[in-house]
C-alpha cells in the first residue's frame, strides 16, 4: 500500500462522517421526520407558510382536505417524490432568501393541485370538462382559488 493512502482514507472518512453527522443532526433539529407525515402544522414548521396554514384553517376545505391532499399526488411514489422535490426547493430558497414574499406556485405544483380537485370532484367535473387535460382544460383553481386558503 503506497504511502499517504492511510491518511487519505482517514481524512475522507472523517469528512464523510462530519457530513453524515451534521446532516443527521440538522435533519432531527429541523424535525425532518415530521415531513413524512400528513400533519398540516408541519408545513408551517417554516414560518413562510404560516399565513397559508392560518388561511387554510378558515377555508371551506379545512374539514375535508389537508395540505398534502391538494399539494401532493395521490400515489405513494409521486407523493414522496413531490415532497422531496419541494423540500429541496424550499431549503434552497429559504436559505438563500431568493424568493418573492408573495410566493408563487410552480407549474408542476399547480398541475398537482388541479389534478387533486378532479380526484375528489370527478363526478361533477366529468360532466363539465369536455376538453380533458392539456392547454384547453378547464382550470378549477382559476375561479375557485379561495377554497383551500384565501391567501
Amino acid at each position, binding site marked *: 500500500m503506497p504511502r*499517504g*493512502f492511510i491518511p487519505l482514507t482517514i481524512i*475522507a472518512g472523517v*469528512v464523510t462522517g*462530519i457530513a453524515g453527522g451534521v446532516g443527521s443532526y440538522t435533519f432531527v*433539529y429541523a424535525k425532518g421526520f415530521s415531513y413524512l407525515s400528513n400533519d398540516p402544522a408541519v408545513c408551517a414548521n417554516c414560518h413562510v407558510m404560516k399565513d397559508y396554514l392560518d388561511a387554510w384553517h378558515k377555508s371551506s376545505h379545512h374539514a375535508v382536505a389537508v395540505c398534502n391532499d391538494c399539494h401532493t399526488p395521490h400515489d405513494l411514489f409521486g407523493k414522496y417524490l413531490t415532497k422531496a422535490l419541494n423540500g429541496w426547493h424550499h431549503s434552497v430558497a429559504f436559505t438563500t432568501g431568493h424568493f418573492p*414574499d408573495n410566493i408563487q406556485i410552480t407549474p408542476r405544483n399547480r398541475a398537482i393541485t388541479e389534478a387533486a380537485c378532479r380526484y375528489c370532484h370527478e363526478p361533477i367535473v366529468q360532466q363539465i370538462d369536455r376538453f380533458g387535460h392539456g392547454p384547453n382544460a378547464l382550470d378549477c383553481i382559476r375561479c375557485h382559488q379561495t377554497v383551500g386558503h384565501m391567501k
Partner: protein
Amino acid sequence: MAETGQNSTTKWIVILLVTAIVAVGVTFGVTALLVDIFEKQQEAQNPFYRVVDLDDDTEDPAVWGKNFPLQYDQYRKTTDMVRTKFGGSEALPHTPDPYDPRMVVSQSKIELDPRLKRMWAGYAFAIDFREERGHAYMLEDQTYTQRHKKPQFGNCLHCHASVYVPYKKAGHGDLMKGFAEVCKLPYAEARKLVEHPVACIDCHDPKTMQLRITRPGFLEGIRNYMKFAKGIENYDPNTMATRQEMRSFVCGQCHVEYYFRPEDKRLTYPWFKGLQADQILAYYDESGFKDWVHEETGAPMLKTQHPEFEMWNQGIHARAGVACADCHMPYMRVGAMKISDHHVRSPLLNINNACQTCHKVPESELLARAERIQEKTHAMREVAMDALMTLIDSIKFAQTAGADEAALTAARTAQRRATFLLDFVEAENSTGFHADQEAARVLFLALDHLRQGQMALAGQGSASGSANPAAATPPSPTPGASVSVPETPVATPDNPAPQNAPTGQT
C-alpha cells in the same frame, strides 16, 4: 502486476478525494441550512430588542432605529430615485451655488410642460416645480426650492419636517398652540426649529408603536369632515379610528389638499363640505379664498396640492378597504420577521408585495393594467390642459378687445374653477390610478367650466352657473361673436398633444 497495483491505487486516491470534496460541499450546505433554521427560530421568538428607551420627545429616527433596525433600514431607502412611467424621479446633477447646495435634484416639471408655468403664472409654482422625490428629501427640497423668491411661512413645515416635538416645544407643551405659533413665522425662522424630515414619532406612539396622528392640520381637518359627513362631534382619530383606518390616516396627515387661512396663516384642510374636488372648490368659492391673482388674466386663482388622500377615498381600493400602507408599505419578509416595508414608494416598483397579495395575476399584466389607467388619465389631462390655455388666450384677447366686465368676471371665475379641478388631477400623484373614474369626472367638470368660460366671453352664458349640464346654455355657433375659440389639438394615445400651448390670438 505492479503497474496494475499502481493504477488501482491512483483510482482509489481519486475516489477518496472526490468523496471528500463532495462531503465537504454537503457539510457546507447542510451547516448553512442548520444555522439558517436556528437563526430564524431565534428571530421568530424575539420580534424586537429594546436597546434604548424611547419617549415622547425622542425626535431623532436613528435612535428609534436602534430598537427597530429593520424598519429603519427600509425607511432610509426613501433616498432612492427611481422613475415609473408617470411618476417617481431620476437624479439630475446640479451645480451647487450659495442658495442651493444640492448636488442632485429631480426633473423640473414646469420645464417639461411649460403649460404648467402659464397655468400658475404669477404664482411661486411657476418659478420652480420639480418631480417629487422620496420622503428622505422632503425637508432639503423645500429648504432650497426657488419658490422662496415669494415669501413663505412656517406653515409649510407642517408636512416637510418632523414637527411633533418642535410644535410641543414652541407651544410649551401644547401641540396645537405650537402649531399656531410656528405657522405664522417667516419660513427661514421656522426652519431653524426643525431638524428631520418625516420621522418615526410622526406616525408612531413611542411606547406602544401603535399608529398615532400627530399633525394638527389633519386632527382639525378630519374633525371638520366627520362632523359634516357623519354628524360626529369632536372626532378624534387617535381614539375613534380603526387600525385599518389609521393605516391611511397617518398618510392623510400630509398627502392632502390644504390652504393657509389668510388671517393667521394657519394650515387648514378644506374638508368642510366633503372630500371631493368639487366639494372642496365649493368651500373655497363660498369663503372667497384665493391663493394668488393670475398674471395674464387677473383671475382669482387656487392652487391644488397633492390630494392623494381625497382621491384615494373615491377609488375602488378605498371602497374595498385597502389602506395606503397596504400598497405603499406592504408587508415584507426579513429573515423570519414580517414587517411593514418602511421604504415608502410607488407600488409599481414593488408589484409582488404590493399587488400580488390580492391580485393573482402576473406582474407584467398588473403593471400594464395600472399604466393603462394612467395613460388614459394623462390623455384626458392633456385635453383639459390645452383647453385651459385656450381660455387664457381668449380672456387676454377679450381684455384687449374691451369686453364687457361681467363676461370677463365670469370667464375668470371659470378659469379659477377649471384650473383648480385640472390641478386636482395633475397634482395628485397617481395619474388617476387612485380613483380613475373620479379623475375622469373631475377633468370633465374642469372642461365644463372651460366651456362656460368661453361661452361667457362669447356672450352666450354665465360661468356662475353650476356644472350641471341642465343649467348650461346649449352650445351653438354665434355668427360675429367677439371672440373665436382657437382650435385645440386633441390628445389621444396615437396623437399626443404638443407640449407647447396653442398660441391662439396672443
